[in-house]
């Protein structure tokens, strides 16, 4: 069916894209893996011998603490996004078609706006002399300004604000796909509302939940500028640690090992996502 003329075109395209991915994705990532098992060198960044010191350093109780704290903040961010996003996506899927389009549009407008600038705008609101404190004080709810900026809470608020749409969109799409018949069937069989929710809706929306978690949790560990602006250079994320190791402390093996932690987390989440999708596929069949 395909003419011979196509062959060179097809080959050219494949060579181009494979070349790009091999050279700019695979090779660099292998370099990072390589860097993580090398030895720190004050002059040329990396040197032999190969060893696992960088990984051992990750489990140094001190650094472990940093990672756990970062993970905690990322997990909180994800949880808050899920708690806000799940009912939001549900409510959104129940709105009329025409209005839905407008609402989705409104949801992605912030996403298309510069994220640094939006983080900065949060600072205007959360600062001690900022708008929130002024508002609360003027209506007499508080006498003293609250310390909101430069806290763990401020970092989480910033991350939630930047990442919420990434939780809502995959959730919305699974709610859209939810088979109405399944719900009806479950009702006919006499299941109550809560039982329908637990046994039908939750499992069916699980892939959406996991996709959302993946899209939120990973960036929530990497967006180093959020703690820089809202966290007072405290409340560090894994991203800050990686950035410091590469751009300040010059401990490349350790920075590389830290970034592999992120990659492994990603692989784990992707695996879970696939698994949940497959299970639903089987049940549906």
């Amino acid at each position, binding site marked *: 069916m395909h003419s011979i003329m196509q062959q060179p075109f097809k080959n050219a395209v494949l060579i181009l894209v494979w070349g790009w991915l091999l050279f700019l*994705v695979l090779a660099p990532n292998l370099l990072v893996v390589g860097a993580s098992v090398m030895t720190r060198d004050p002059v040329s960044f990396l040197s032999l011998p190969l060893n696992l010191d960088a990984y051992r350093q990750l489990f140094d109780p001190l650094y472990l603490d940093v990672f756990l704290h970062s993970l905690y903040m990322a997990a909180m961010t994800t949880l808050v996004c899920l708690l806000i996003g799940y009912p939001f996506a549900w409510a959104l899927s129940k709105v009329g078609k025409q209005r839905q389009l407008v609402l989705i549009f409104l949801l992605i407008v912030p996403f298309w706006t510069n994220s640094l*600038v939006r983080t900065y705008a949060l600072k205007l*609101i959360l600062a001690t002399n900022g708008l929130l404190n002024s508002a609360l004080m003027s209506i007499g709810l508080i006498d003293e300004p609250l310390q909101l900026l430069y806290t763990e809470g401020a970092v989480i608020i910033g991350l939630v604000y930047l990442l919420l749409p990434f939780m809502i969109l995959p959730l919305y799409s699974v709610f859209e796909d939810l088979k109405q018949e399944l719900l009806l069937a479950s009702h006919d069989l006499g299941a109550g509302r809560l039982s329908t929710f637990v046994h039908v809706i939750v499992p069916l929306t699980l892939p959406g939940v996991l996709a959302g978690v993946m899209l939120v949790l990973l960036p929530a560990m990497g967006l180093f500028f959020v703690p820089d602006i809202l966290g007072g250079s405290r409340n560090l994320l894994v991203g800050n640690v990686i950035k410091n190791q590469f751009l300040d402390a010059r401990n490349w093996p350790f920075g590389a090992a830290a970034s592999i932690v992120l990659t492994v987390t990603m692989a784990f989440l992707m695996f879970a996502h696939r698994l949940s999708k497959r299970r639903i596929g089987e049940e549906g069949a």
Partner: protein
Amino acid sequence: MTKWLPRTYLTLVYLLLYVPIVVLVVFSFNESRTGYAWGGLSLRWYESLFNNRAMVTAMWNSLWLALSAATVSTVIGALTALALHRYRFRGKKLLNGMLFVVMMSPEIVLAISLLALFLLVGLQLGYVSLLLAHVTFCLPFVVITVMARLSGFDESLPEAARDLGASDFTMTRTVLIPVIMPALLAGWLLGFTLSLDDVVVSTFVSGPSYEILPLRIYSMVRVGLKPEVNALGTLLLVFSLVMLMLSQWILIRSKR
């Protein structure tokens, strides 16, 4: 079921999403320098923005970078999507999977790996390194956008064209390209915006010879409250709003 509850909830969340943006826009017209209090209407921050030569240079650099990154990634991405859609070849699943992984990878991982590569091959950090990096993270998004369009596309059309004696090239030009055009534009606009917004990757792979806007903004917001940032943010907001409406309009129009 009561309808007001979900509606109130939706409204509330939208309100939270938009309050910071509204604050930003309103304060960009604030005369007062010291931040939070209202000091009267003024355009002075816009003025000081455009009088700052380094800022204007960074703006042009960023626009040029976004333009070229979006274009290159659209070309490569569209070709890849076509290949994935039309051809069978070994490693097709792997290619798909790899693009997915690139899309999901935390930006910081991409950033340091590219930095390591550029240093190893001795590429000067500047426009070229930024371009390569930006194209890399835009690529999967373009592929997905175009693939989505192609999968909804009636396979009988190219067959019919071929039956009528059209060559493969003509068929591609007259049937396929018009069909995926909206997706190309949407993908291009997405790439453009991603590139313009990127801080994480650019922090690592930019050099002194090519300063771009996000890094300029980053150093400004770290210094503290700068009313110029409000003005700049408002401009960027308007700009991306126009881009977004354009892409939505293209997509919606193409569906009819």
